[in-house]
């Protein structure tokens, strides 16, 4: 079927199977590989994206369900990797293998948009569905608290939630991704 998807503020027309999950449209059709495949059954959170600001497991929901809604992936969270959550992740030195971190960061961004000063219990409730096999959980907790501070110190006009219109669509041509780091 033909679909209109708005991802990171950019409109896309795609032709995909009816049941194709949003995850695979993002990764295999649009080339936005920052969103990860971990389990395929909404058990690990690696595929978390934001839809209208809310965290969604993109591996189990067909892309068709999101036509016309604002999808934000890790590539679109901030233009320069400086969302308060990303800054806190850097300060606290959270990442290890990094594979789950796109999902962790988006889950944290959604939490902070809803609860600017989350407690440990709030963090546990919001983020225990995002698995990390490296066990970065202690630093994730610390970084969410730090991100709350950073967010609070932003000028009032600055957006704390992703600003889809301002986010430049990242260049991910196939050849670039393929040669990337290797």
């Amino acid at each position, binding site marked *: 079927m033909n679909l209109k998807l708005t991802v990171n503020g950019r409109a896309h027309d795609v032709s995909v*199977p009816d*049941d*194709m*999950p949003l995850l*695979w449209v993002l990764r*295999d*059709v649009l080339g*936005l*590989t*920052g*969103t*990860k*495949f*971990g*389990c*395929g*059954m909404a*058990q*690990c959170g690696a595929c978390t994206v934001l839809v209208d600001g809310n965290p969604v497991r993109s591996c189990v929901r067909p892309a068709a369900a999101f036509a016309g809604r604002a999808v934000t*992936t*890790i*590539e679109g*969270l901030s233009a320069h*990797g400086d969302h308060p959550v*990303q800054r806190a*992740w*850097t300060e606290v*030195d*959270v*990442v*290890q*293998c*990094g*594979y*789950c*971190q*796109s999902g962790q*960061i988006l889950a944290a961004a959604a939490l902070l948009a809803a609860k600017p000063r989350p407690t440990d219990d709030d*963090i546990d409730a919001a983020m*225990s*569905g*995002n*698995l*990390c*096999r*490296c*066990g*970065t*959980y*202690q*630093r994730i*907790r610390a970084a969410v608290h730090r991100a709350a501070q950073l967010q609070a110190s932003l000028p009032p006009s600055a957006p704390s939630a992703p600003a889809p219109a301002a986010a430049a669509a*990242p260049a991910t041509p*196939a*050849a670039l*991704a*393929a040669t*990337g*780091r*290797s």
Partner: protein
Amino acid sequence: MRRDARSAGLSRRAFLKTGAAVGGGLVVGFFVPAGMRRFALAQGAPAQPPVLPAANAFLRIGSDESVTVLLAHSEMGQGIWTTLPMLVNEELDADWSRFRVEHAPAAPAYRHTAFPIQMTGGSTTTWSEFDRYRQVGAVTRALLIAAAAKQWGVAPGECRTANGYVLREGGARGTPDAPGARRASYGSLAAAAAKLPQPASVALKPPADWKVIGKPTRRLDTPEKITGRAVFGLDVRLPGMLTAVIAHAPTFGGKVKRFDPAAARAVSGVRAVFEVPSGVAVAADHFWAAKCGRDALRIDWDPGPHADLDTAEIRESFRRRAGSAGMPAAAAGDVERALAAAPLTAEYSVPFLAHAPMEPLNCTVRRAAGGCEVWTGTQFQTVDQQRVATILGLAPDQVEIHTTFLGGGFGRRANLASDFVVEAAHVAKGLDRPVKVVWTREDDIRGGWYRPLAVHRLEAALDPVAGTPLAWRQRIVTSSILAGSPFTAMIKDGIDPTCVEGASDSPYVTAIPNHRVELHAVDTGVPVLWWRSVGNSHTAFVVESFVDELAHAAKRDPLEFRRAMLVKSPRVWEVLELAAAKAGWGSPPPPGHGRGLAVHESFGSIVAYVAEVSVEAGQIRVHRVTAAVDCGICVNPLGVSAQIESGVAFGLGAALHSELTMKEGRVVESNFHDYRILRLDEMPHVDVHVVRSREKSGGAGEPGTPPIAPAVANAVFALTGQRLRRLPLRLA
């Protein structure tokens, strides 16, 4: 591809059979993982190897002032993307903000310094590269100074370096503004330096002058990992590439009897359906079409020789085996006599475990005339390279390996059969386009190569007066990881060290005058592999739990009891003592909480934990873990702390939740809903205390895992009086 099934019949299994086929003709003889470092030390590994590394293989300095370090090892979360550049810069003195990092290709220059292959494992990276990467920095700095001195017509000895510049201070007093003062950036000197001959020797800085080593340093890979730019194997995309998934046999050693590809071919986007040695491949325009195609396949399987596998039966057969003597792995004194009168006995067991890295296994292959390229997150570059070459009829150097970031490894990506890489090579052979082979989580959980199931039978005798241990017998029944693999040569005197490490060399066990550690290595047909900390993942649980049992039997404080046993291992004792002191051992825990402790040495490092637990609604909850670690010289304390936290989480998930079971030859669990790992709300607060040490570096990635299960089990005993001898821990 699964390891070839060998004949079944647990009761008759000859242990440590080594005659099985060796894939790809690859035979590598290197020493045991746990003993690697000790072995290297015993060989008198020199501080300065006779031949300096070719600096240009490891380091590039650009005219744009960029400093690019090539890693001979794989970054899988453990932080070497930062640690190895730190070692370079200890000597190079460049601008840290200019550092970039790449994985090196598979090539002889990047062989492990202790072993004849290029690989990442055994927590060896930092200690094995401690000299080489510093030498690379020192050689390069010497060349830059030589280039500057030549350009300025001065002696190299008149020059120094600072933060990416070569400097010469002019005038008699050496002031920077005086006549004759010179300054040139590394980038501006790089081209001239590259033309100079490499010096025959360089002097490395004495430890007293270190500025980088020991400095807490944030990771260099964070920017790309928090923005989605980091390229993992699964993220590789090539023009014209197909994505394939494989229908694997539901039983270990199963084979395709016949299959009907029609329904799979009818799925929109599916381009090819064909048999490969490991099953049936479905290649499509994207993952979703390939997976739907696989779901539509109709396959008749020959279940093979292991169609009756049942973990309950395996455990029972292991228990029976534990009743008879095994091969001795350690022996002293007269255990029979010392155990003659009413010994303390106990039986412990642990299950099969999957590594379950967050990134499912995957591998991309592009064939071209006269060669091929492989993109994958691997821990085993040259092993994989040789296997792919064999399958595609190429020489190894015609196979270019691009190592991507690894979305976790934990040993799974150091596969004895290169299973996921070999499979991709076979799929690529059947296609005329590049292909990425992707495993689903179900493929991963059910795909074998597990931490082996193990049963330990313990017997001990205490001195009736002093309460000190007089005798210890430990019979370990488990499966050999190395038997029949390319690493069979690591088996010494019939003992696969990966089965007994952490027990046969335990400082507790070897301090007991009469002791004996025995092994029954049983092939169950289930492919097994090194899982973060390998044999230590079960031996530490058993040894530290049983020592705790002895302490309570002797009516002694667990810490004091261990002090007496560790008299000849002062370094181990000091780490335990530090953790205990920091945890307030001896003071009462909060109401409703219990404390337990454990210490274990593995991979050249010692880690001790004090765990504080409670039981809520029948569930064990771990609130706090106080950790002490002695890993010798600690290059990056921030990274070591992260690895200890990581080891706690990995080991605690296994201690509380993870277990694979098999019934009628099939793995019951399939995904994270029934193969549970630790979640954020179960993560205890972890305090890490790193011992300041000038001893040679040990590992950091693995040593944090072994002692958490016994620390928690010992805390549960302290709180409830229940001695839990089986993982995962379940209260009665």
